């Protein structure tokens, strides 16, 4: 039940890591669950708390909180994009 989590831009700077390998705990079934679980780490991880302006991708496509998370997935969290 391993997944890879990536962090980008200001969110990466805040949480202090670009990626981590993560063993999915029971009860974490969706992107929204995962985000809440990470926010519960507290302190700097508060940047992922509900209400913060964070976007997510699952396997390199934009994801909704209800999207499922499964073994081998690549989940990314980042601030709203500012390209172009």
């Amino acid at each position, binding site marked *: 039940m391993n997944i890879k989590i*990536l962090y*980008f*831009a*200001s969110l990466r*700077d805040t949480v202090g890591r670009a990626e981590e390998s993560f063993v999915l705990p029971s009860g974490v079934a969706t*992107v*929204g669950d995962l*985000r*809440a679980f990470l926010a519960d780490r507290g302190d700097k991880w508060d940047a992922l708390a*509900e*209400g*913060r*302006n*964070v*976007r*997510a*991708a699952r396997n*390199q*496509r*934009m*994801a*909704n*909180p209800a999207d499922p998370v499964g073994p081998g997935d690549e989940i*990314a969290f*980042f*601030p*709203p*994009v*500012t*390209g*172009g």
Partner: protein
Amino acid sequence: MSVSVQQADFDVGAEIAALSQGRLEVGAVASFVGLVRDVSGGAEVAAMTLEHYPGMTERSLEDIVGEARRRWQLDGVRVIHRYGRLEPGDRIVFVGVAGAHRGEAFAACEFVMDYLKTRAPFWKLEETPDGAHWVDARDSDDSAAARWGTESEPRPGD
């Protein structure tokens, strides 16, 4: 290849010419070049670094191009987006669209730019006299994308 994500600069004239090269049915090429400005939100910008999400970037740009080709009858679409450190005056992005008529070419070119601004995973870190800071997303970009009548970017937890 219709999408490139690269550090190197690009040749705008060659890209526009390639969109109609050998395609005598093309009557219109609309294009856009985005450049680094020396001001941003009132502050002076010395340089910026564009970060992106390798893999997802290419995929999202290809999705955007595919959506444009479904919506309009087009002969060619080309998107180039740079990443890395850029200075004021440097080119950031190129979008070119070829079609039989100008209405479709203009609409598709603007559509791709509006979506790219809200859906492609790029982030700007600006260097100003006050130090480096990440640029916040502009609400006007979300509303520009929203006028195309599809869902906006999903926001987990919002």
